[in-house]
């Protein structure tokens, strides 16, 4: 690539007219401890080369790049990927107007990524946790179908929605009113309806029809938010009947049917911190569950429980706790990187040739409190971890003879 096209691209980026995925500059990180999230495991004293937003080489014989960064032995991982939250869809939980993750009328065809705000103050804060991408999901409305998940990056760019409509989210299990059997019936009726529908070639199918067709074809994962073992068991049967690409989210009691899930190849998105019987659906929540599912052969994704939009930065600590209670280090790393990429079909989540250059350099063990992000890159571009919180801290810890309002 010539210098001319490079600067042309940069000016387009500056003008906000070009996708942030385009990064012309080439970069090498050398002398790193690469935790690859691949079969290669950990590579000591390794180098990784980035060009045009992608990883182009690992440990090449020679390096010829614009910029070289000496990691001085620090750990470099693939960027962590948050899941199942409303990052960019909420600013303040209790401020109605800042909340776009759900709608009473939401259903199978509801896609909240249309409302994604890359300028949300939550995004730079989340980067402090080494989060480079996130699976945003609708929070739900009156229907059991919350709507469609999308994948965003945390670059802050207006082009940060990487992949739209990556999964359909359905809420099952315990209800405040009525029977969970009715929810299952609603789901089955929808699947049956689409399966037996007469295809009219002349008529463009509706979004709902397209989504259901993709779900039935196994192309689009169906994420079922559900906790109780018997519900999970029923869903596995449904997977077999309809050939679904089923993903369990929640799964406090998934450990009870771990072998069934492993055999049926059903991934589980779990909070590794859940260990209280929040309801009669969750009597087996336990800190050891992530590790037990891993050992049973289930593909585990760790997600932050509760308000995961504001707290997704804690993902690395949840992974650390999972390790503390029996998960392997490798397994926990995959649970916040490559397993998510696998389930949602992302070209990221590992340090491997051809992958999106979402990388994080850590001052220490990324799962422990003592570590912080030294540097991070999204789509090959270095991004800052400075957030609004840092400005506030500095304002109130900097001496001034003037009122604080003048410290900016």
């Amino acid at each position, binding site marked *: 690539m010539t210098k001319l096209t490079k600067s042309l691209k940069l000016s387009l980026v500056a003008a906000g007219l070009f996708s942030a995925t385009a990064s012309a500059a080439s970069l090498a990180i050398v002398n790193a401890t690469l935790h690859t999230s691949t079969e290669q495991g950990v590579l000591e004293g390794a180098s990784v080369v980035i060009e045009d937003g992608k990883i182009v080489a690992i440990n090449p014989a020679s390096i010829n790049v614009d910029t070289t960064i000496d990691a001085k032995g620090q750990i470099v991982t693939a960027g962590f990927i948050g899941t199942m939250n409303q990052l960019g869809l909420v600013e303040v939980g209790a401020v109605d107007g800042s909340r776009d993750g759900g709608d009473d009328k939401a259903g199978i065809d509801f896609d909240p990524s249309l409302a994604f705000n890359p300028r949300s103050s939550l995004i730079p804060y989340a980067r402090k946790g080494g989060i480079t991408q996130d699976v945003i999901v609708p929070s739900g409305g009156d229907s059991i179908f919350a709507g469609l998940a999308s994948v965003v990056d945390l670059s802050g760019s207006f082009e940060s929605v990487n992949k739209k409509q990556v999964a359909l989210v359905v809420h099952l299990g315990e209800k405040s009113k009525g029977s969970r059997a009715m929810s299952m019936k609603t789901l089955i009726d929808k699947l049956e309806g689409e399966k037996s529908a007469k295809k009219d070639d002349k008529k463009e199918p509706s979004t709902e029809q397209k989504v259901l067709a993709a779900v039935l074809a196994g192309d689009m994962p169906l994420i079922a938010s559900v906790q109780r073992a018997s519900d999970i068991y029923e869903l596995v049967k449904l997977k077999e009947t309809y050939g679904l690409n089923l993903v369990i989210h929640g799964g406090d009691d998934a450990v009870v049917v771990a072998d069934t899930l492993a055999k049926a190849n059903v991934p589980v998105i779990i909070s590794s911190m859940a260990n209280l019987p929040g309801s*009669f659906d969750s009597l087996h929540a336990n800190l050891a569950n992530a590790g037990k599912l891993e050992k049973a052969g289930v593909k585990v994704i760790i997600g932050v429980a509760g308000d995961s939009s504001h707290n997704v930065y804690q993902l690395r600590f949840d992974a650390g706790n999972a390790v503390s209670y029996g998960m392997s280090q490798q397994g926990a790393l995959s649970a916040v990187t490559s397993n998510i990429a696998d389930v949602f079909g992302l070209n990221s989540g590992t340090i491997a040739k051809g992958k999106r250059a979402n990388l994080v350099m850590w001052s220490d063990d990324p799962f422990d409190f003592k570590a912080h992000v030294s540097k991070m890159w999204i789509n090959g571009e270095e991004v800052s971890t400075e957030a609004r919180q840092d400005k506030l801290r500095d304002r109130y810890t900097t001496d001034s003879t003037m009122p604080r309002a003048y410290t900016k």
Partner: protein
Amino acid sequence: MQKFAPSVLVMALGVALAGCQDNGPQDPKVSINKNPYPSTYKPLASQSTLITNATVLTGTGERLDDADVFFVDGKVQQVGKDLSVQADKTIDAQGKWVTPGIIDVHSHLGAYPTPSVASHQDGNEMTSPVTAEVWVEHSVWPQDPGFNRAREGGITSLQILPGSANLIGGRGVTLKNIPSHTMQGMKFPDAPYGLKMACGENPKRVYGRKGVLPSTRMGNMAGYRTAWIDATEYKREWDKYESDYAAGKNPAAPHRDIKLDTLAGVLEGDILIHNHCYKAEEMAMMIDLGKEFGYHSGTFHHGVEAYKIADLLAENGNCAALWPDWWGFKMEAYDMVQENVAIVDAVKNSCAVVHSDSDTTIQRLNQEAGKVMYRANDVGYDISEQHAIKWITSNAAKSLGIDDKTGSLEAGKQADVVIWNQNPFSVYAKAEQVFIDGAKVYDRNDDKYQAQSDFMLGQK
């Protein structure tokens, strides 16, 4: 003139009645039982125990390497190197760390227990903005499985508070985190009561919806002031009764009001304020409110903006019980900084506390404190483990008024002790053994010391 007539009559009657009561033999004195639901807690049987070769964080700001901790009859007797003492039980803690039992000043366990079904929602009496008459101990379900999970995280004492829907939500209670099938069996002997107050969004939202005061922040302030005026008058009546009786008169006792009993208890200094309050300007006003009515404004809980008034908190002797990183769930929690605790702590005479307000993070207050320590050190603070542990031990004990009893490993203190498998501020740290008043109440490697609530027993 006619208007005056009735009141003149009442006054005359009042004088006549009072005159009557002031003379003659005294009726039996009316006195209020301040402890009608007394603690029945008895420490479990214990042995004299010597923990050796540990890294000891005393809770007083000291760290002792390769040190021993010796406790007898439920009390810490000695802490130091190479103690030459006879113990029934010696635990080699080589490579392990020992701290005081962890104290959470803000919990709703038992009042908002798990399973969190509708019939368990006993933490907020949302029927009136001032419910000083309710005592959260009357809501505590001791079978909440959360107590056991918290003990596994090293929690030996905790304060249960009512929720924050009300301006004045009711009394809190401090518990020893000991398994018991009665609330009284957990009640921390001789711990002062707390009174829950709440600033900001919650009370004005809850009551604004009902169309009653408060629907604004100024309404909040008016609501507290009205309550304290009532309490002041009530206390004056009782003080007068006491002094008249002491003078040999035979006064009629004032009509008893359990709401005002509690508020008067604050004015007397017996009950400590625990104030849910996020914002700097609100905390500053709550400090003045205390001064207006002659009580101490106590501990501010949550205090997301405490860092903006760190000096004011220290000057006025307020503890601030804070989270490391909760934010953004409502407007008043928007200005969080990760160094909040450290900034509050850095001022002379400060009292920074890390609290949970959560049935999950109560299990990991060591990790919550660790987050603060490392993030603050990242930006130039120099906080050591021996200092940070104070946020969840001795400072917490101070906030609850039990620092003469627990919260540090000093001779004479209750032997509430945790042995950790490693540095407690690591994500990989786990409490291995927990002692309350010298008795082992949890052992990670011995099922015999792992309590299970009635609710979980036999569940498949």
